[in-house]
């Protein structure tokens, strides 16, 4: 972290900006600035919500050595499925419409994630690759549908769907006025607690960890590896799908070809930065959200180009990933010295 600040500071100095000011704007202004912070503080939570929700889901698979890197696709399909339900029933004003769309979003993400799961079970295909390929299928499906049957009939042929904000029944509205905090923020907070409980207290948390660290022992303990694959991919897919639906009915408001902005990929980074621990993921998600919002502030407050912020984020991630693993590794070394030869794990 300190290294990033130094490296980032050097970069900003090279660009002729005051480094301390730049770093202050990126990290502190979103939380403490007098004029904007009352708005940006809750916005950090809003921005973090999809990242944390997806990362929490992914963390189970990553613990169990099951590598879903297609959360972006599951997020898109979740949004598509939920949105399609809403659009099919347009202009229904039923109170159950949003919950139904939520359910459809979960199912959409689940189905998309089960494809790599089932292929892995029946054909032993690599889930990293299948889930990644399905991201592109999802992106193309989205643009096919929003330029086709889901296109808004009142939108002058622009590639976008009807607005979900137009009807209260499809609007994932802010729950506290003026903050923008929608259902997703509260789901996120609830999920963090729930996942923490699962990890610490529930047998499933133990089984997941065991399958990842010692697959053979897990087998002897009666854990069905195939069930593990379905559960881990299913959980992450469902949560990504739900996150997508909450985003499209909430902050985004409509389906467009530009709807996916890479949350599914960023969530992978968030999951690792948080060391796959629910509280860590929450913190990592908030940190990412702060740099996004702080980056925007830095653009128009001190004229830092968007590219410099990308570079800064990249450096931050490099340093965190590098040092994080050092810490992680040392812990393992002590506790698992017997297991040395198996340390070659994908972490």
């Amino acid at each position, binding site marked *: 972290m300190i290294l990033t600040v130094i490296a980032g500071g050097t970069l900003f100095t090279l660009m002729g900006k005051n480094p301390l000011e730049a770093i202050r704007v990126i990290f502190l202004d979103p939380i403490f600035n007098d004029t904007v912070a009352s708005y940006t503080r809750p916005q950090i939570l809003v921005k973090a919500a999809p990242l944390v929700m997806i990362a929490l889901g992914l963390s189970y698979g990553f613990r169990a050595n099951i590598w879903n890197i297609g959360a972006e696709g599951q997020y898109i399909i979740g949004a598509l499925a939920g949105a399609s339900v809403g659009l099919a029933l347009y202009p229904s004003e039923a109170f159950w419409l949003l919950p139904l769309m939520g359910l459809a979003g979960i199912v959409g993400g689940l189905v998309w994630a089960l494809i790599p799961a089932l292929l892995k079970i029946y054909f032993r295909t690599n889930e990293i690759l299948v889930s990644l390929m399905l991201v592109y299928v999802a992106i193309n499906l989205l643009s096919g549908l929003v330029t086709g049957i889901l296109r808004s009939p009142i939108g002058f042929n622009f590639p976008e769907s009807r607005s979900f904000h137009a009807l209260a029944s499809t609007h994932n509205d802010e729950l506290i006025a003026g903050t923008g905090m929608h259902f997703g923020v509260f789901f996120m907070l609830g999920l963090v607690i729930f996942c923490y409980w699962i990890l610490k207290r529930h047998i499933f948390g133990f089984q997941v960890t065991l399958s990842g660290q010692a697959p053979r022992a897990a087998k002897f303990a009666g854990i069905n590896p195939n069930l593990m694959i379905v559960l881990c991919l299913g959980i992450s897919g469902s949560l990504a799908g739900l996150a997508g639906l909450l985003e499209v009915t909430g902050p985004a408001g409509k389906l467009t070809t530009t709807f996916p902005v890479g949350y599914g990929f960023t969530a992978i980074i968030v999951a690792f*930065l948080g060391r796959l621990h629910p509280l860590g993921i929450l913190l990592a998600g908030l940190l990412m959200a702060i740099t996004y919002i702080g980056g925007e502030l830095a653009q128009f407050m001190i004229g830092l180009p968007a590219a410099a912020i990308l570079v800064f984020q990249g450096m931050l991630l490099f340093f965190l990933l590098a040092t994080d693993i050092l810490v992680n590794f040392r812990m393992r070394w002590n506790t698992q010295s017997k297991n040395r030869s198996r340390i070659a794990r994908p972490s």
Partner: protein
Amino acid sequence: MIDLSSISLVTLFASILVASTPILLAATGEMIVEKSGVLNLGVEGMMIIGAVCGFIGAVKTGSPLVGAIVGMTGGAILSLVFAVITQYLLGNQVASGLALTLFGLGLASLLGTEFTGIRPPPMPKLDIPILSDLPVIGEILFIHDPILYVGLILPPVLWWFFRASRTGLIVRAVGENHEAAHAIGYNVRMIRVTAIMVGGGCAGLGGAYLSLVRVPQWTEGMTAGAGWIALAIVVFASWKPWRVLLGAWLFGGLSLLQLNLQAAGVAIGVEYLSMSPYIATILVLILLSSRRYRHQAQAPSCLGKSFHPTL
């Protein structure tokens, strides 16, 4: 109205060769990296760095070939960051690769700010006498620039390299079982770092081809997802050099074909055609893992796994 005969197959194939070269180079590089057991998802970042470095190099020196080398070096240097983090600091490869893409995209636009709106020096075409006068074959194959031929030569060279050369077999061994390779006494880290840098260099060259030949100009974000396509091609090709070539032609060709069909007045569903190569890739994966082919190419066993020597 629909007149398919107006599409000249000769020019179409020649264009496909050009259009597929950036992804071919990047995919070949990524294949080398993955053969050594490393998954680097930062191809997009390395390509765009290659594009901007190559462009700057060409404009500054006036020589597109020097530019191509600069682009290659740029990609390799960027990949070194990834190599250090994943091989020496044991950072997670998936997350580090994604971070590399962010970093590369940002750095490229910073480097390129002064270079938008400039035309690069034109890349010379190798006009091979006699060969280029051959009907059809000559018009498709022998009218291009030198980098394109580098792309075409790489797959056969790598085919030989991974099949018959000692070094190639060692790289493969490292990718299949790093424990064993280490036990025999090979320096797993060194081999992987080298593979990553060669991969970075190829991606950089692919990027440079984009900014020097295919488009030719520098604009921010100009790779527009080509790096991700390269990743898909490696999988599609099931880590076989010849199939990487085929995959690059297929992925590059389909997008070109749909534009050509449109120009010829044939209406088609663009999105559904664009997603078909990815679905084909998944089908290839399934086919490969079905029993009949199981003994054949699969993903390198250690793909994506960190290695740290245990003394």
